[in-house]
């Protein structure tokens, strides 16, 4: 199979495509494929020319940490959780475009954290609606659990037609953290709803493509429904 990879040596240099030949089984993930290209032998392009190893980021290698987010065959996905068997004979891989590239497939996603920090999106103290009846207050348990699984991978921002890095619309990742805070601390509900409106609710055009790509299947639409109430 042919693997096309969009490469970039430094944050300031020009990106360029490089094509590799690979022979791996269908059960190999794209993470496994990148490892294969980097280390099965000297790394050469399709014409046998020596090149540099491909930079990318990983940690858990099983879809639990969000490190390896990239765009594979034009879909934003996690490399360790995407398999060659589903990709056909030509695979294209490029870095997320909504974030500054550091090197090859590595991007700087710090804006995700900065936005949450600047808007003070934190729980502070777990205060269920009805302390007397914690059981009742737990009826949103599954939704809270799902929201807290967010990897901060940024895939939802990559696919979103409204998200532009550095601007005031912060995307699904922000909406879900807002939901978690408002549902775990009833005292912060009003404040968080306002922030949510400013940085998400008022701009979201409901394409909901964010939900299609979310590797954790977080029900962003349910978070929106709660916060729009």
């Amino acid at each position, binding site marked *: 199979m042919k693997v096309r990879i969009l490469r970039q040596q430094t944050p300031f240099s020009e990106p360029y495509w490089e094509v590799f030949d690979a022979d791996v089984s269908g059960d190999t993930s794209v993470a496994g494929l990148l490892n294969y290209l980097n280390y099965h032998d000297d790394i050469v392009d399709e014409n046998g020319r020596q090149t540099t190893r491909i*930079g990318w980021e990983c940690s*858990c290698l099983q879809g639990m940490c969000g490190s390896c987010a990239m765009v594979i065959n034009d879909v934003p996905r996690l490399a360790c959780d995407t*398999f060659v068997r589903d990709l056909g004979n030509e695979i294209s891989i490029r870095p997320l475009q909504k974030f500054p590239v550091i090197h090859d497939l590595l991007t700087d996603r710090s804006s995700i954290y900065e936005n949450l920090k*600047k808007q003070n999106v934190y729980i*502070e103290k777990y205060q269920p609606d009805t302390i007397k009846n914690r*059981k009742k207050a737990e009826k949103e*348990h599954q939704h809270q659990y799902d929201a*807290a699984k967010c990897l901060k991978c940024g895939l939802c921002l990559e696919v979103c037609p409204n998200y532009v890095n550095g601007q005031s619309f912060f995307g699904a990742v922000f909406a879900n953290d807002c939901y*978690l805070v408002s549902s775990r601390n009833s005292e912060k509900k009003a404040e968080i709803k306002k922030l949510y409106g400013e940085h998400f609710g008022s701009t979201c055009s409901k394409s909901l493509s964010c939900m299609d790509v979310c590797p954790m299947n977080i029900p962003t639409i349910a978070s929106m429904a709660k916060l729009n109430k």
Partner: protein
Amino acid sequence: MRDAIVIGSGISGMVTAIKLAEAGVHVLLASPFPSERSQSVMAAGGINAVMSRHEEGDSVSAHIEDTLKGGCYLAGEEAVKGLCESAEEIIEYLEGIGVVFSVDEAGRPARRAVGGHSYRRTCYCGSSTGKQIVSALVMEARRLEAAGLIKRALGKCFHSALIKDGVCYGALFFDEAFGNISAEYTDVVVVATGGQNALFGKTTGSTQCDGYTAGELFMQGVELKNLEFVQFHPTTIETSQKRMLVSEAARGEGGRLFYMDNGERVYFMEEKYGPKGNLMPRDIVSREIYSAGKDVFLDVSFLKDSDIESRLPEVRDLCKKYIGIDIAKEPIPVAPSVHFFMGGIAVHKNHETNIRDLFAVGECASMYHGANRLGGNSLLAAVHSGMIAAREIAGRDTKEDRPDFSSAAEEANRMLDKMKDTKSVFPVMYIRDMASETMNKSMGIIRSEESINEGIKDIDYYLSVAERLSYDNSVLPYFNYSLTGILTLARAALSCAESRKESRGAHYRSDHPDTLDDYAAATVISYENGQYKVRFDKENEYES
């Protein structure tokens, strides 16, 4: 105390930073990647605590006893007591900051049973306990970041500590954005860099846990402890990228281990240990699988589809996705894999190392687990150790004088530049791969004088090569300069394994299969002029 540096932002690093910041200390929380990428997010099973609403018959002293027994009585009694006694408070703290625990009918954290515990005392958050704890801690840290007390420094990799006359004054970091090494001065440094996975290559954990920090600190005079105790998880699957854990729940639900002999299934665990044989402790099952010398399978296909669906959905999804196996129809090919490190940086009860003002917490420190760790105790230890260290540090005085270490940073940059001047196509990752192959062979599930000595010979050779190796410009500079530290740690682990001429917990020697009273003490190793010096801590130096 004015300021502190915490290196590593998994659960233990975040707890330390949060507790220090709450006491008014300014914290620099340094790590290459955000907390969401740390190994802590992978913990699934749960976190132990005997709560006031405990199971009938359970008690904190039973938790203490189970922990000490699990660790083959090598862990300090006082330390374990402190750990188990603080567990309830820890769960309350975590719940208070918003961790989404799975709850019982009363809306309180529910408990599940985990191997090695005599009672049901493991609190959990569905199947992602670590992730849920990390998410809540990230929010707490964010609160203190917004208050200006915690400063997160991403892209920073530890290089070395700034130590003078047995006191630590800060650390050097390689900064990925600037491509150079710079010094950060402080009153106290806390290391929270996790386990030593890289020594063994593919493990169940994160690629970020490479053990470099422990190895480098060791070369700088910090003592390490119990490095021979490495926990293998018996049931993992091999994938193209790593080894993945098949949860103990699969055996808990009745899963049976077997191998094929002349076309017949041999249920070797049941044959040897009776009907409950598949549920024996992790180290015993791992050893039996290894000794079988054949491909071993775990079968759950006889369970009803609806039971698989409701009780083992994660195992089903994992096998389907990564190895294309339908566990309702076929057995799962399994093998043991390295999973957890009981050994690490030697610390006193307050989590300070033998260097003043240098602390270690979480999995990189060795304290509570002795010769083997019980499931659910390491998340507890990660939180507890952070709290203990922070309490100790907050009460310390601010440093009046700080020596000038500017020449240390210059020297480190000069060395890095010198390395960069000698380009090579020989990748450092090959040496790391070869070293991990050596470690798997020589320090695997069953060891012997012979296997360990072969390992020592190989690692010594790689160390000599590493020093002469030219720079590999295809990977980050961190991978180049960290090689020697990682190999030195591997060498130290082999020395510990060589010295312990007995079998205990996770350390099994085929040439010394019995447990001996002579070795009923922790192994402590130090590095002096290139020599690896092992002693057994019979005086309980590290218990105070």
